[in-house]
Each structure stands twice: as C-alpha cells, then as structure tokens.
C-alpha cells in the first residue's frame, strides 16, 4: 500500500519552512512516496521490547565545570549577519496587527 504523499507535501513543507513551487511539489510527492515505501519496510520487524538506540555510545554525559571563557568579539558575531542594524541582527515583521475583538 503506497502512501499518497501528495496530500502531505503542503503540510510538511510548511512545518519545515520550505517554499516549494508547484513543479517541485509534484516531483517531491512522487519521490517521497517511493522513498517512504522502501523505508516503511522496517515496520515488518517485530520490535516489541526492543529499546531504541538514540546514541551508539552507552555512557553517561560528561559534565563541564561552570567557568566562563571569553566570548567572540562583536565583529565576529555579526560578520556573517545578512541583515544587521547597529549591534543587532535584524529580522522583518514577526506578528501581524490583529484587529481587537469586540468585548461584550
């Protein structure tokens, strides 16, 4: 049973913040269906009582001491900034103005 990825493409692209044109979406839907059909074969395996492997290393985390080190210079921090204003990174409008609801 193949997955119809066509329906999912818009939702997933939005979640991943990827603008895709119509052509890309169409091609993507087909290719992703194929890939996921293959990937889905892992569902044949019985994995009840199998612990997932998130890390191949079976060791606890090593902890760092709470000491400070010099940070980067401001120039270095901002040297790659696509949009800069004074000593900040600048981004366009985040939230739109919403008309206030009538309170009754």
């Amino acid at each position, binding site marked *: 049973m193949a997955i119809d990825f066509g329906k999912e493409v818009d939702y997933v692209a939005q979640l991943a913040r990827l603008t895709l044109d119509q052509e890309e979406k169409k091609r993507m839907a087909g290719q992703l269906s194929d890939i996921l059909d293959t990937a889905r074969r892992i569902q044949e395996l019985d994995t009840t009582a199998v612990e997932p492997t998130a890390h191949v290393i079976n060791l*606890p985390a090593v902890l760092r001491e709470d000491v400070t080190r010099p940070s980067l210079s401001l120039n270095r921090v901002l040297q790659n900034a696509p949009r800069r204003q004074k000593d900040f990174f600048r981004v366009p409008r*985040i939230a739109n103005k919403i008309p206030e609801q009538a309170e009754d």
Partner: protein
Amino acid sequence: MKYEVVIGLEIHLELQTCSKLFCSCSTTFGKEPNTNCCPICLGLPGSLPAFNRRAIELAVTAALVLNSNVQLKSRFDRKNYFYPDLPKAYQISQYDQPLAKGGYLRIETDGNYRNIKLERVHLEEEAGKLIHSGESIIGSDYSLVDYNRAGIPLLEIVTAPDITCGREARLFLEDLRSILLYSGASDCRMEEGSLRCDANISLRPSGSDKLGTKAEVKNMNSFRSVELALNFEARRQAEILVAGGTITQETRHWDEEKKLTIPLRSKEGSSDYRYFPEPDLLPLILEDNLIKEISAALPELPAARRERLKEQFGLDSSEAALFTVNRSLGDFFEEAAGKYSDYKNLAKWVQGDLLYYLRESGKTVEEVDPQQFIELLALLDAGEINRPVAKDLLNEMILKGTSPQIMVQKKGLGRISGDEQLLPLVEKVIDENPGAVENYRQGKDKAIAFLVGRVLARSGGRADPGEVNQILKEKISRG
C-alpha cells in the same frame, strides 16, 4: 450554570550559573548586545553543546525544594520550531524523561494551607531577546535580536491544573519565588526576565472533572499582571459561555496598558514540535550521592524560617513573615540579634526606622553594618542619646557608614541634662520670650509647651523634654 476556573502555570526561570548551559559564555545581565556569544550559543554550523555541572546541581536543588522526584536518569530532546530568537531552530529541552517528576508547593490563602501540585521540573536552554521596532511585537515593522541571553540555563516548572483564580496564581508565584530565592537556584527577577510565567486557563461547570477548552495567556510581566490577566481572562471566558458561545483554543497576549488579553495570530501546525532525543548529548545520569549531597546542603526554607523566627526571637507573625519574605532584612536581624538581646526592640527598629531610611536613601540592607546598628541601639538604651538623635545618626550611618559612637564623640551629640547644662539654655529662652512666660504665669498651660520646644531646639534635640519641662517650671516659679 456556575463555572469554576482551572489554571495551570508554566514557569520559566533562569538558574544562577556563571556560564551558560552548553557553552562557556558569561550569563551576566545587561551587557552590550551580542557580546556574550560564541559559536555554540549562536548555533553556528558545526558547534556542539556540553553540559554545565552547576546548572544541573541548581536544577536538582530547585526540584528538591519543590518536593519533586529527581530522576536518576533523564534525557535531553530537541524541540523544533522556527523563531528568530532561537539560534538553532530547536531548543534543547527535556520531553518525556524530565529531570524531576511530580512535586508540590504549599501556599497559604487566607489562613488556609493548600498544596499546589506540580507535574514536572525540567532543564532547558533560554532563547535570545527580541527588541521590537514598535511598542510591542504586534504591529512592529521589524525586530532586532540580541543573543546574549541565548543558552542561559532555564528551569521549567509546570503545575497541575490546580489553581482556581488569579489571586491564587499570584500567591503561588510569590511563594515559589521566595522558596527558589532561598534555595539559591535563581535570583527570580521578573523585571529582568529571569522569571517568566505563562498560564493555561479554562472554565468548566462547577463540580465537573472534565477540562474545558483552554486559552494560553502570555506576556504577563509581573505577579500583579498575572492576577489581573487571569481574572480578566476568566471573566471573558465566562461571558462567552454564559452567552452560549464556545471558547477558541488559542494563545492570548496580555496588554498591560489596556488591561486585557488579545489573541496572538497562530500559524496552523506550528505546535508540532517534532521532539526527538538530542543526538549531541548523552543521557544525564545522576549519582545517588550527588543528590544526597545537594539534599544535605539545602538551605533553610521560608516556611521553616518563619516558624523558627517566632520561636527563637519571640517575633509575631507579621514580623516573622517580613523577615522571611525580605530575606536579607531577616539575615540582618538575625546577625544583629546575635549581639543584642532585646529582640522585640531590635525587630521594631529594623522593620521601622531602618527600613524607612533604607528606602529614603535607596541603599540596600547589605550595605549596613549590623555591628554599628547595635552600637546605635546601645547608645540609646544607655541614655547617651535620645530618639531624634538616634534617627539622625541612623540616617547618616546608612548614607556614609560612619560608626554612631564616633559620630557622637566627634559632634558632641551626647545627651544634655542636669541643671548645669540645661539652666543656661532655659534662662536664655525665658529672657527671649517674656510674653510666653507671662502667659504661663497667668495659667495658660500651652505656653509651657512652646517654651520647652524652644529649649529643645537650642539643645539641638539633645535634651530630654521631660527634664526641660521640669527645670523650666521650677525656674519660672522661682524666678
């Protein structure tokens, strides 16, 4: 139908470490923008996180004082979402294996105690700070990002939907702040953003145990605004329900100016955080011993202190409460009490004149030397100075840190008494005010008070009014 309000709080507070959670940048507040940043906290390609031991110890401390069950094994996950203050487009947080589970905080409302249940306590990283071009995020044409804050260790405390009104939420937060201040885990400064609170609020028919549709309220910047916002929101929802409407599940923004909540536009699907285990960090395994050590080293907590202050120093409830809420004032009192045994008098001075002059001068109690303070009370008790002089000296002591004993010696501020010292002043005042003297002689008692005042003024406040009164009367009747 009657409705009851159901509130759950989500509190984020910054832990008091020197360096950030995953890198060695300083956590100092108020630095020039983007100067406490490195490849790790900027999320530069290729950088990797490494745990700060102190952050974990402080988180365990906080969990312990909140009666939460610290987990020997916990795990860090990535919470994926896009936002300009989030450098990696994911927050390293804890999802299904948090640092601590359950717990409660005991609060007192109108003399009744109640345990507010907690769901979890976990550790995560702070995001950067946005500065909007306009007054608020809504309607601003652009925003500026400062990543100094990004990566500071953040403790998230999630309560059960266990709170019933805005006031209770405020009391919970006040007690929470107090207990966490005591634990040393956080400085809990809401005005600097090191303590923040979001709330989920819904209504349900009284007696029902099903939760209604909730709204999430954000942007409450003080304990008072939490109370106001939640009360506003409860009323708003009630009005909708009473009118037969339905509540929309949404995020609402508290407008501090207008004192109302407004909806924040939400992107559909934006709450699918796609949590998965952080591959760059191995699981956090806490040694049983570490938890025991932290547990043994816990400081005295507010409730215990309040009781002890009553017991040990005979303070009344309001004094004990003040010296608990204002921890440093309480510490000052206790240190002074070690060398001064009239606790009632000490408490009276600390909460009265000391606090008054501290406020006047803008100084903090940490800047006052308890030893000098006791000297001052001792001078007063010994009758070396009188109350007005003591107050002046206290003020000067706070401002300049000069010892009261030295001030008394230098300025000759010791008390003036006895005929030898007072008679010359009295005679002068009688000479200068024949009218008042005449009035007194004719039986107008008020005139004597005027004359006493003149003498006191001449003495620079160092004479005792009773003694002056007596000497004056004697002199006038004799002379």
